[in-house]
């Protein structure tokens, strides 16, 4: 049967008439450098960094300031360091259970945060750590939650996937379940007359869940300010997009919802796409939009997946060496004369020091108190008289 499937299914289905999006991280070119260093640079994003479906493409010419580029570099580097620290803590058996890392996908979380406003809302699924920090959380809060400590964002009661800030509605552990929730959040924004939208993220793996399509329909029907964001890292767990989806052009799957496919490795393109989407949903009140970021995860789906059984080591190595989002931005910064290699190394060091300090702080935090096993199930004071515990004698009375 397996061999039959192989003969029938070519490894990559040809995409008729569609050039595939390019995902190099460093194809944006410098157009104009003002003599005053406080003025923004004018740069041009590669035209193959965007494909659109029933909508215009964002402007390719963009203004960026030096400070912004350096800030985004520092943020991406810090997020990668944090994920590497989580990896090390997991391998040291200090983090138990589940852990999904976003190494390689930093241009999505950092580009998103730099393109939206403080009171926009974000909700995502498994690969959530960088979003939680970018949305106002702390690295200690994320690592503390992974470690199951009181200092964690959910006080150690959630663990991996269960991290939140006031404008970040979580990590969510059920594939696709966050998509209708995000739709409801954006309905509330519209109802309240807020000038904000909700970025509702999911992966290429979740894209085939029925409730994703239910959400598309409701958002379009009611013209909600929902930006659906498909983070297409090319593998849903251990199955490639081509083997799971009859249509891998995820930005075209919203039926009447227009879509934009974006080079998810070039931070300047991701930020520009996010701003375009925000303007679409909030300022122009055009209703929902479907953004697809084509990106790549270097690691496995989770810690138990080496990530090399369904793709070759060479493929991973090629992506790392040629399309890395941090290296891409590094190249812009150096080539456009914004900072020297030495100055960037100092930023790298600062990022590492920040994460190292957070690791120590998280490790020093105590585990949740026994009594908190029983709190936050129901609103305080409205609980049932008792809840059963793990054994016969352990019954908690409220």
């Amino acid at each position: 049967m397996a061999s039959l499937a192989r003969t029938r299914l070519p490894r990559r289905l040809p995409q008729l008439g569609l050039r595939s999006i390019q995902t190099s991280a460093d194809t944006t070119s410098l157009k104009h450098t003002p003599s005053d260093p406080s003025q923004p640079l004018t740069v041009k994003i590669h035209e193959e960094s965007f494909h659109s479906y029933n909508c215009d493409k964002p402007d390719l010419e963009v203004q960026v300031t030096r400070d912004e580029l350096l800030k985004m570099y520092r943020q991406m580097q810090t997020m990668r360091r944090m994920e590497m620290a989580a990896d090390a803590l997991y391998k040291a058996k200090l983090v138990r259970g589940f852990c999904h890392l976003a190494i390689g996908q930093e241009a999505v979380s950092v580009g998103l945060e730099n393109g939206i406003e403080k009171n926009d809302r974000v909700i995502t699924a498994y690969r959530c750590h960088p979003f939680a920090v970018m949305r106002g959380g702390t690295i200690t809060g994320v690592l503390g939650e992974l470690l199951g400590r009181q200092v964690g964002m959910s006080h150690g009661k959630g663990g991996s996937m269960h991290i939140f800030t006031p404008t970040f509605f979580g990590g969510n552990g059920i594939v696709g379940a966050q998509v209708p929730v995000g739709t409801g959040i954006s309905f509330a924004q519209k109802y309240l007359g807020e000038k904000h939208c909700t970025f509702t993220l999911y992966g290429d793996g979740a894209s085939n869940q029925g409730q994703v399509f239910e959400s598309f329909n409701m958002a379009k029907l009611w013209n909600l300010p929902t930006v659906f964001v498909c983070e297409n890292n090319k593998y849903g767990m251990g199955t490639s997009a081509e083997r799971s989806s009859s249509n891998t052009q995820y930005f075209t799957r919203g039926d009447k919802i227009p879509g934009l496919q974006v080079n998810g490795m070039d931070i300047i393109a991701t930020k520009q796409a996010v701003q375009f989407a925000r303007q679409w949903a909030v300022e122009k009140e055009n209703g929902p939009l479907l953004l697809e970021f084509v990106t790549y995860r270097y690691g496995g789906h989770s810690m138990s997946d080496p990530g090399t059984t369904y793709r070759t080591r060479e493929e991973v190595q090629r992506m790392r060496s040629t399309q890395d989002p941090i290296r891409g931005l590094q190249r812009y910064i150096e080539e456009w004369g914004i900072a020297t290699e030495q100055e960037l190394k100092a930023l790298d060091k600062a990022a590492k020091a920040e994460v190292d300090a957070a690791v120590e702080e998280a490790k020093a935090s105590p585990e949740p108190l026994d009594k908190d096993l029983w709190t936050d199930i129901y609103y305080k004071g409205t609980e049932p008289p008792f809840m059963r515990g793990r054994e016969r004698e352990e019954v908690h009375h409220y």
Partner: protein
Amino acid sequence: MVGGRETRKMNTYQAVRDAMSIVLARDDNAVVFGEDVAFGGVFRCTLGLAEEFGRERVFNTPLTEQGIAGFGIGMAMMGHTAVAEIQFADYIFPAFDQLVNEAAKIRYRSGGSFDVGGLTIRTPTMSVGHGGLYHSQSPEGFFMGAAGLKVVIPRSPLQAKGLLLASIRDPNPVIFMEPKILYRSAVEQVPEDDFHLPIGKAEVLIPGSDVTVLAWGTPVYNAENAIEFLKNPPAAIESLVPPSLRSAKIELIDLRSILPWDVETVVESVKKTGRLVIVHEAGMTAGAGAEISAEVQKRCFLKLSAPVKRVTGWDLPNALQYEKFHIPDSIRILDAIMETLSY
């Protein structure tokens, strides 16, 4: 006027509508949505609400139960009051994941930083005599282990209004199951004001000392009939009811909340009577009665004079032509009471 309060004669759907109308009038962030609710809903529970409060606040959704639940959860996470209708309780299964994994757990898994206390899911439940496989089920038991949720089932118009108002204002997500045959058949004087009945509290309807009969929703009435049959058996069954049992004092309890259920009231009653008959329309295996009998047998073991008896729907699909055999009717309840009394 009853007891100094203005009342009006209402059936259950009118009482449900009245409760929602109060909430919509008093809470600007309250919205009511579901399949066909804008024109009144299949059971007329939302009749006229869209005209009264606007189609922005009372609106139809697509036929997407999982989406409706998730959508309501998102709204409630923003602090809104979301009153969603799942058109039949039989259709709640596509939304099961959203309710059990998202609604029930969000407060806990976020360490208290988010909650969906503003979410209420209303859904018609139990048999109607001709609902068949997908319109007569009673899924309350499936939610019984979902800590974080509350499950409420009223028996009458007055109960429906007070419990629904309490459910919508309860700071936890509540699944409110309305016995559909009672929408029109149950009628009583209902206070016109805004009042709450307690969630998690059973109500002793008839006090007694010899056997406790526990039910909720539609079977409360079947149980009441069974008690009457025991006291004054109709001619057709008189020969089957031993005269020695006819003077037994039966205690009838309406459980009202399935989660959390009122262990204290039930256990106190069974300690007094030593006998318990549980009646529900859902199938016996792993129905709510299974949990209740296990807990009662643990707490009342030495006080029990008979095994806990369950009178339930059969462990079978709820087929149209068999519906009258499926529901725990008065005769089956009477039989169970007699068996328990004479054990």
